[in-house]
């Protein structure tokens, strides 16, 4: 095999610079986080605003009580929204709202008051409410996105029913019985650890973030390789290149250069999210052991080598960019398949499904990231060793086969070889 590192680095530098200088790269680097931030802003912001708007406009409730159960109920409903400007911030801001309760003798009177805008809503409590639980509510409009007014009415009803019999404190507890519950679960060292709302969020987001980042880094680098090889094949430059460098040097340079470009993209995205992640890490007291980070690097390197080798093979046999992408989509899908099964894997990280996916080379990286960062780690040393060994063996096999296919496939123009032909090249070169 003819292999010169200076030539490999020359090719890698060219591939890296040609990729990162493209407008598409700059657009993807800035545009993707901006898009997600925009979507988050559009979805979360208005939802909070809508809740505030609903409670602010819920000034008065007209009650027609035919049951007689609420004669001594409170004349006001006090509601509050506890929300964070930054979901990971320690500072919790609370906004309070008050709704006046006015009793009406008849539904007609309450309805007239509603139409005259004297009250915001009407609650009709039938005589058989205790037996049937049926209620009727009248409003001029209703919100599609917030049920805050309904929750406020619910609290008032609980207090109205319980307070006369059990007192104010019991009524308050009955209205929100699990408002302040502390859950303790076993941590990785076998100690019970407080698991609050934020901790629960970490348990979900941390594995998801690691699996997503790993999957995306591998995929982005591999896709750059696919595009690069397919484009060069289409532009007929390969023959000039292969006259000067060996196919191994060309493949090595591409793997390094385009993998680095993919990594840079992920680093840029991570850097843009760093203020958010950093605050979150501090608040949640995140502990990322060095062994985990070492495993992330190992899975990235092996996973990238495996996936990129497959993409190289596909790029060199496909007759056009479009055809190459059609073939590659299946492998990309497989890479992210564990994320579709996120709930199944995280709820039982030691299940046969989770173990099987973490051993299968195509899904090993993303599945193992989910399992390793799950709140209840179940990965044994043997599983880890087996998973890494299988992935490494597959990566080496894929690299050797794709290098053989690469050398022959690149010089075939306008014709896509059949599968037996590709397999023959992969075996014999």
């Amino acid at each position: 095999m003819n292999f010169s590192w200076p030539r490999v680095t020359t090719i890698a530098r060219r591939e890296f610079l040609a990729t990162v200088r493209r407008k598409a790269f700059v657009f993807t680097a800035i545009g993707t986080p901006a898009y997600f931030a925009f979507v988050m802003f559009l979805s979360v912001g208005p939802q909070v605003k809508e809740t505030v708007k609903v409670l602010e406009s819920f000034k008065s409730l007209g009650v027609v009580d035919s049951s007689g159960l609420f004669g001594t109920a409170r004349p006001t409903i006090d509601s509050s929204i506890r929300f964070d400007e930054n979901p990971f911030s320690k500072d919790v801001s609370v906004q309070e709202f008050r709704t006046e309760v006015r009793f009406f003798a008849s539904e007609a009177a309450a309805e007239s008051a509603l139409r005259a805008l004297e009250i915001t809503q009407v609650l009709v409590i039938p005589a058989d409410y205790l037996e049937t639980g049926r209620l009727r509510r009248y409003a001029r409009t209703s919100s599609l996105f917030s049920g805050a007014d309904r929750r406020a009415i619910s609290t008032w009803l609980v207090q109205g029913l319980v307070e006369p019999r059990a007192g104010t404190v019991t009524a308050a507890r009955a209205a929100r019985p699990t408002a302040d519950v502390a859950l303790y679960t076993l941590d990785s060292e076998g100690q019970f650890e407080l698991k609050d709302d934020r901790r629960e969020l970490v348990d979900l987001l941390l594995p998801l973030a690691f699996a997503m980042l790993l999957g995306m880094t591998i995929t982005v680098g591999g896709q750059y390789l696919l595009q690069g090889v397919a484009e060069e094949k289409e532009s007929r430059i390969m023959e000039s290149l292969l006259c000067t460098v060996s196919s191994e040097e060309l493949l090595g340079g591409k793997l390094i250069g385009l993998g680095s470009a993919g990594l840079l993209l992920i680093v840029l995205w991570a850097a843009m999210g760093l203020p958010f992640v950093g605050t979150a890490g501090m608040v949640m007291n995140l502990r990322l052991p060095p062994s985990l980070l070492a495993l992330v690097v190992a899975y990235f390197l092996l996973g990238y080598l495996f996936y990129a080798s497959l993409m190289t093979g596909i790029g060199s046999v496909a007759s056009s960019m479009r055809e190459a992408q059609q073939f590659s989509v299946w492998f990309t899908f497989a890479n992210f398949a564990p994320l579709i099964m996120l709930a199944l894997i995280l709820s039982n990280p030691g299940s046969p499904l989770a173990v099987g996916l973490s051993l299968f080379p195509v899904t090993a990286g993303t599945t193992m990231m989910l399992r390793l960062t799950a709140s209840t780690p179940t990965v044994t040393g043997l599983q880890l060793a087996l998973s890494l060994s299988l992935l490494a063996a597959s990566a080496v096999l894929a690299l050797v086969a794709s290098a053989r296919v690469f050398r022959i496939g690149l010089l075939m123009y306008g014709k896509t070889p059949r599968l037996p032909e590709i397999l023959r090249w992969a075996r014999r070169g």
Partner: protein
Amino acid sequence: MLEIRDVVKSYDGRAVVNRVSFEVHPGEIFALLGPNGAGKTTLIRMITDILRPDSGTIVLDGAPVGGERKRQIGYLPEERGLYRRSRTLETLAYFGQLKGLSAREAAREAGALLERVDLMEWAQKQVQALSKGMQQKVQLCTALIGTPRILILDEPFSGLDPINVQLLEEILDERRRAGATVLLSTHQMNKVEELCDRALMIHHGLMVLYGSVEEIRRRYADHAITVRTAAALDRVPGVRSIERSDGDLKLTLEAEATPRGVLRALLEQGVEMDSFALATLPLEDVFIKVVREGRGLDHGQSGGADAATPAAEARR
């Protein structure tokens, strides 16, 4: 010197190149000829170490091609292609670096080559902004950069206007005088006659012609001589027929007659001559004749190919 010895390459059991042997000497322009599908591109790909032969050897200055020796070959493939979005100078400098030049040397040589082919003002433009002819010249520069000792040019004249054809001929001559070996594959037989010292023709993967261009042209000229004279020739000993064409007389000799004997007979008859030369056939006619007659060479009639091997050439 580039030496190709008994090279064979087969696909699916069919020999695309079959026991081809030839030599190309330093400072010569050598033509590789053959009809479409003859196996020329496969042969060139083996010389450039893109493909490996099934058997036989390809030797450059006594050592097999490949490895670092690849850097001594400049190749202009028939399938042209460049990085369309890269700048012209940058593209050339990249190829220079791949051929072992430092970044500075590569940039300097790339600039000099662009200057030589009148494209310096396009140095900072993207390749896709250049016309087809300009791209062809840039592609030629990718073959020339690094001052390779072997230049392999596959159909280098296609797509060039007459001025650029002349420029290319000048560049080839410069390189030849500097000691480079040029291997030219083309279907433009007039260019082969103008530029090339020797030629090899393959057909169905087999060698069918090998030797100096002049010798090949004479060999296929029906054992004839051309005489320029005002005299009316009627009967000359040893001459089978006399034809007049373009003011010259073409004398086709009898099988056992020699040009020297005919010259002596003409002088004895007192014929005054402005010129007396061995007749030659245009290379294009030789090409057509050989391809037509050469049918069946890939069905076991290897006599033609054998007759054209360097050993057979040496025997003649």
